[in-house]
């Protein structure tokens, strides 16, 4: 009878180590659906006017499983409405009227291939001219 290459005790220790390593490396940022185009770059948000921000993703997005938040100074989160646009990968975000200042849109989207993406788009609302 041949002895097993790796004894039962070694297997157990390896398993324990592996479980620990899994925990140790556990935090993993995700990104698959990425924004390929944003209306914010061409049409900055005007102060005190509700705006529709349009984002284009590189992949189809499951909207019922996605959320977008407006983040204001002090990292305060406000959920905002999202809807599907007419073009593929287009998501329309209803942003309320904003005072001048720094903001961000934090999105958590579920891509059609089953991967979650969390990301942030920072933007600035300028003083009215």
């Amino acid at each position, binding site marked *: 009878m041949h002895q097993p290459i*790796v004894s039962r005790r070694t297997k157990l220790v390896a398993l324990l180590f592996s479980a620990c*390593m899994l925990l140790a*490396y*556990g935090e993993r940022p*995700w990104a698959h659906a990425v924004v390929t185009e944003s209306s914010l770059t061409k049409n900055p948000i005007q102060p005190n006017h509700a705006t529709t921000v349009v984002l284009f993703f*590189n992949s189809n997005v499951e909207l*019922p499983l996605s959320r977008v938040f407006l983040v204001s100074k002090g990292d305060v989160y406000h959920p905002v409405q999202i809807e599907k646009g007419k073009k593929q990968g287009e998501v329309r975000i209803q942003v309320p009227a904003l005072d001048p200042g720094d903001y961000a849109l934090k999105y958590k989207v*579920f891509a059609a*291939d089953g991967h979650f993406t969390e990301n*942030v788009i920072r933007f600035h609302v300028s003083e009215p001219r």
Partner: protein
Amino acid sequence: MYMQGLANFIDDFLGGLILISYALVVGSLLWSAFILRVWSPGFAAHESVVRRAVALLRAGAIALAVTQGLKLVIKAVVLASVLGEFPADAYIGTVQFQAGLIRLLLSLGLIFVAGQLQQTPDKPSSWNLAAILIVPLVIAGAWLVHGVGRFEDREQLMILTVLHQFAAAVWFGGVAQLLSLWYMSRQSQEAKTLWPVAITRFALLGVSSVVLLLLTGLPLAWTYVGSWDGLLGTGYGSLVFTKILLLMVALGFAYLNNRAGRLWLERRQTEGLDNKVPHYIEAETFILVGTLFIAATLSSQPPSVDIKELTATVSEVTEMFAPRMPRLTSPTHEQLLAGEPGRVAVVDKVPSPAATEWSDYNHNMSGIFLTVMALVAMLSYSKRFEWARYWPLGFVGLSIFLFFRSDAETWPLGPIGFWESTFGNGEVFQHRIATLLAFALGVLEMRARTNRNARQLRYLFPILCAFGGILLLTHAHAEFELKSEYLIQSTHTAMGLLAVIVASGRWLELRLAETDERYAVGGVLEGKIAGFIAILAMFLIGLILLVYREPLF
């Protein structure tokens, strides 16, 4: 937040396990068809050998059912934790859920059919049923890949990816069956008789699968990567590149096996076939497992063609590996803590140079530990330096360094208590485990090398290196600052690749040394070369850490 990160990670890790399970199922069926020839009337393979192959197929089906089922559950957990609620109807309505559920049900069916085949392995109708179940199982994969979310060439990409996965499954599943047959041959004459025949028959199947891998992989890489910059300057591209490198190493082992098979055919020479080939196949398995995990990680990376403006240039990537003096001084705790609120803010984010320098110092010092350990390990190959076999003690020193440096705000250097920080903060918890792992690995490897009664522990080091390498390869950074995080990831990917090489090299060294004890064929020299390559790879990991510089973001 930590649990969400962990669930996300497990979700992706399961992707690798699903690919391995899938390969065991698909590869085992093809093995049974072409190597054991179970569809041929009065097939030549002995029933016991066929039963063994079916057992592996069944184990693959069980693993696939479990991992696929877990993936559906974990995905639901991730959704609930990210969204703060669980929209069950919307989740059930996704193509991901439906395709995953179909795979789960088909796997359950296969478990049942494989159970029947174990009872009556010569029943053609059961084999037909297994094949009928596996066809939709393969096709269902089309709705679980990148291509399904694409806007252009969606169907072509889905088909190409399914064929690519199929080819990989035939290769890996066949290699797993070869290993299983070899283990069996140590106790069974029937398996021993089939062993050289199986090696030679598998050559054709293996070559066919490699050709199909290339024919499908090249257009996929061209579509998703698109340029040399994309190949070297993005997470997706670098993983494709690493996958190609690992495949080349695996092909090298496959060539050695094939050559031994041809020698047997021409001269009935079984020496290499019996004592070296099995260990080459074991090392090839390490490499292929790493490759399958990379394939799973690829599916969660944005394709290079979609992030052209965020692609790092080749010079930016090479700069990450450029020789430079390691950072030997660290910012103070006060400087580090002062920059933290701005660094983690979403709005008004301010990069923290102190945090970057703190991290550089930690990496560079760890690099010093590893390079010194590797150099001492190299000396240990000479009998003149007996003391050098104590090189694993370096891991203990590294763990003590990490204990003090990983989390500046916690005990023993910071104000937050040990227990409070360990169980109150996910990141600190992770660092504590990593520290403990390094300490325990040092102690165990030390025992394995110096205590003859603890020889079984020797295999722990390569197994854990392989696992650590896989974690580094799958632990891809790609979120808020794609380019900066990719530059960090490029170093981790390189270290992951090298860790897999450390694992297979050390494994081969240990196994060939054992073979030499039994057969006296000169395997020790080859084993020592493999072991030295492993130490060299560890040295290179140390060098990468030694010159590590984190981009400021």
